């Protein structure tokens, strides 16, 4: 009976908890992580951006959106396209 275990309300509560935990982690625990301003040389390299090519990512997202039941995560899942 998978439907009963994963009701939308329960999923939302879980998601809310995860979000609060992530925010708390970001605001406190992560303060020990990171670099000084003069140590940002490597991170500023264009190849270190999370999305190096928006065009590649957009094209792939559209292909997988059309061929799988999952979309979004990195960005919004979006709608559009009745493509098969």
């Amino acid at each position, binding site marked *: 009976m998978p*439907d009963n275990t*994963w*009701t*939308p309300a329960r*999923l*939302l509560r879980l998601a809310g908890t995860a*979000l609060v935990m*992530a*925010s708390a*982690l*970001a*605001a406190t625990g*992560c*303060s020990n*992580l*990171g*670099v*000084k*301003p003069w*140590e*940002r*040389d*490597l*991170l*500023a*390299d*264009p*190849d*270190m*951006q*999370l*999305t*190096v*090519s*928006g*065009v*590649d*990512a*957009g*094209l*792939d*997202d559209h*292909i997988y959106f059309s*061929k*799988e*039941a*999952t979309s*979004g*995560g*990195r*960005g*919004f*899942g*979006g*709608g*559009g*396209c*009745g*493509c*098969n």
Partner: protein
Amino acid sequence: MQLNNTGKPVGRALAAATCALLGVQATNTQAKGNPGEWDVETALLVYAESDSRVNAIEPVISATRNFDGERQLNLKLVADTLTGASPSGATPSDLPQTFTSPSGSGSYSIAPGEAPLDDTFKDTRVALSAAWSAPINRDYAYSVGGYASREYDYFSTALNGSLSRYLNNKNTTLTGGLSLGMDLIDPVGGAPVGLSRMPLRDGKTEAEFDQEFTATRESDDSKALVDALFGVTQVINRQTLMQFNYAVSYSSGYLTDPYKLLSVIDDASGANYGGNLIGADGNPVYLYENRPDSRLKHALYWQTKYMLTNGDVVDGSYRFMIDDWGISSHTVDLKYRWRLANSYLEPHFRYYMQSEADFYKRYLTATEYNNGAPALTEASADYRLGELTGLTLGAKWGYRFDEDRELAIRAEYMIQSNDGDEGFGQLTNHDLYPDTDAMWVQLSYSF
């Protein structure tokens, strides 16, 4: 190490991460990014599936205008032309099968043993998006964007916005985003009534057929989408950047695919056991699919970028998705950018697996069909809602003429495999879950 871009603030990398949170992907060509200049990325994608299935040609142009103070405007235009055939959802049969085309004006036939493909599939899509991102002050930045796409039977629009907060000397970025979308669906021939029987011409006058066809149609339809996204981007150390997102997506309205079918299979014993159920009009029984009218999805996404001491970059991500249709999925994506003097080579690996939707049915039995009064309210044989695994292998090679100009070619090969109920009787003679092979090649030039 090729550190030819020293001195760029990490804030830009984080702002780029913020942009990446938007469904409208900004190009983020920060390496160029000089105020007063346009950075342009162009690409042509050619996509092909095996067995004469879908083919697509997709040109893209994306232009980013950089203003002072890290303000950016991105405009993107995508066009695509699709041709080929798409699996209709009906099962293969020992006998030839004839289906009515979506418009109702014609029909198409499938040879014995062949997978039923709807070859009337053809479409052209044009999509335009715009995104603006700018800092508010030292600690906050925002993005707003819009999206519209138009195809023959579909019109989609969305507006989105996000707000980011920098913490810990910009080592941490918290981002919240919201997207509101509205899609209008106007299927060829009108949207079929869910789980109604596909009218077939055989043995009928044109007037009888028209009457039957009209009775299975309802008006055009729409769906609304709300997406919310919360993300944390964290600089771990000098070589490592990490992102963690939670996305929730709610869609409601017409979520059915108007062109997908279900075969009804005879489960009474006898010569036709496991074959198509024959209706009172002497024709096989095929139903139009029907999906729930809402869907709530949750996705967790984690991505890490790591630069090795030799300057190569590893990009790994994992996504978990679960929804109230009973589908859950896992996606792993890995890229390794091997950097040479003026060029790079980037192998790519992606693995995807999903479980089937609660209402996924490879076929319906005559018992479930119940002489036209099915007990179920939703059913779909769309393989994309079934148990599915996908493996993609690819590589990209790029050459950088200078800081501004880059030429790249990328090729990806994907194989999708389905699994599920193998049927009974005559159905077991057929491959109900053929693999889907797809390949795409993309040529890009940015300047």
